[in-house]
């Protein structure tokens, strides 16, 4: 047997295993003997429907209110107030801004939220004529990041501020990406670092290197296990929902602010449910608990 045959054989085995898995799924879908049960409504998931209805109902209500001109108060979020300060510092120092939208692909909701924030950050950097460098871990994010930055530059009235070469795909390998980012931090010395998105074990490495270069760092993620590292190494950290609120807060778009208000109302109802449910459970009445346990 030739060496090339071994390689071909090994490659085929892997390939065939992938196709076999796909075929098994397809055959199961087509050839299964189970009797289909077609229902438009699954009562086991009524709890999800209730939450969706409350959330979307309150969001739509507040969006309508903002369209009617009602003022919606949003409290100050320190990490987001500092965005202008960080970009201003980069402007004064004549250094770029670094923006990392996490290391997950576009099917992660944090990445989508980060792309919306990137548009607003790009608008600010374009206004101050500061380049924004966006290193990426996923190839599909390249066109998305390009569109976001381009949109931000257009909103600032500075389409010429868009620099395609600053949107950089490095590698899909987590720590190769991390090494690339630390290299950029050391060689191009960005003075404002934004780490907004889904991060994992690389969070401490990049935020420590950013700290060592003297940059102002603003981080935000909903990955609870990475928040401690950002809190320790960054100047400002957006915790969980603060990160998702960032796009509405920065843009001050009345409709987006409506979604924040809607989310707050949902949280208030949730708190009421928790308090009532806990007292009912104390009294031995577990109906509410069973309702939320259904379908899980």
């Amino acid at each position, binding site marked *: 047997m030739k060496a090339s045959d071994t390689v071909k054989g090994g*490659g*085929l085995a892997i390939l065939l295993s992938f196709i076999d898995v796909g075929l098994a799924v397809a055959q199961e879908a087509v050839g299964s003997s189970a009797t289909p049960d077609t229902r438009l409504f699954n009562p086991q998931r009524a709890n*999800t429907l209730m939450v*969706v209805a409350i959330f979307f109902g309150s969001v739509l209500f507040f969006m309508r209110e903002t369209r009617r001109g009602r003022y919606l108060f949003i409290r100050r979020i320190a990490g987001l107030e500092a965005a202008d300060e960080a970009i201003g510092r980069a402007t004064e120092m004549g250094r770029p801004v670094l923006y990392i939208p996490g290391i997950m692909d576009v099917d992660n909701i944090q990445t989508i939220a980060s792309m919306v924030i990137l548009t607003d950050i790009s608008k600010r950097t374009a206004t101050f004529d500061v380049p924004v460098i966006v290193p990426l871990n996923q190839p599909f994010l390249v066109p998305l990041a390009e569109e976001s930055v381009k949109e931000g530059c257009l909103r600032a009235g500075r389409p010429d501020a868009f620099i395609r070469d600053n949107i950089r795909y490095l590698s899909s390998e987590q720590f*190769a990406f991390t090494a690339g980012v*630390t290299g950029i931090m050391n060689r191009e010395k960005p003075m404002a670092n934004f780490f907004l998105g889904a991060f994992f074990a690389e969070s401490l490495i990049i935020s420590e290197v950013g700290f060592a270069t003297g940059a102002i760092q603003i981080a935000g993620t909903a990955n609870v296990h990475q928040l401690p590292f950002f809190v320790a190494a960054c100047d400002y950290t957006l915790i969980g929902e603060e990160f998702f609120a960032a796009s509405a807060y920065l843009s001050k778009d009345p409709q987006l602010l409506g979604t924040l208000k809607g989310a707050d109302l949902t*949280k208030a109802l949730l708190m009421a449910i*928790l308090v009532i*449910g806990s007292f009912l459970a104390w009294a031995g009445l577990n109906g509410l608990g069973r309702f939320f346990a259904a379908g899980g």
Partner: protein
Amino acid sequence: MAETITLWVGGLLTLMIFSFLYKDNPYYKFAEHLFVGVSAAYWMVVAFWTTFIPNLIAYLYPPSMGWFAANPNEAKVVIDNLHALEWWQRWGRLVPLILGLMMLTRLLPRASWISRWPMAFIIGFSAGTNLTRYLQSDFIAQIRATLIPLVVVGADGFSLGATITNLVIVGGVLTALVYFFFSKEHKGWFGGTARVGIWVLMVAFGAAFGYTVMARISLLIGRMNFMGRWIESVF
């Protein structure tokens, strides 16, 4: 011989990466660029052989599987199975192919706007499908886990430990939720409650920090063991 080469390459690259602790230098730059370049190429090959060929080419043209086969009999089974599929199961793969081709229009400045359609499709699809998933796992499951009795009286009577645990869980969740209220200024009793909430979060973060640092130390010990084996092989 192969193990010796592996040890030397691994040991030298580890030293090059560790040299960053002193400052940025040509050795670190070499290791960094090697890592980024090799991994980018590696993932491209992985995507080609695990996504492009088995999920697209094999379905559109099953005989193509014979091209990669060292053993034609093995490939024949797969090809026959692919032919046995319903027509829509095979030709439905044209939809992602078309979306992929639309993405490539970014390379043509005058037609680049076409690439926004597949992007919009994927973002919309991701947001929609994730909505109920996150609601189930992060929201409903959290509510369910927090609906617990504030005072625990078991078969053996009143349980002080379980009662304190439940009070901390319910109180911690409620105060942390108050911190995430954006509609009201954090002042007065509301601000005090939010401050308790942020303390709860920080205590949780501190515990997670310590736990993860321990895991990182074990990674460092593993690397030091590797370096030890390398040095042993030299002497």
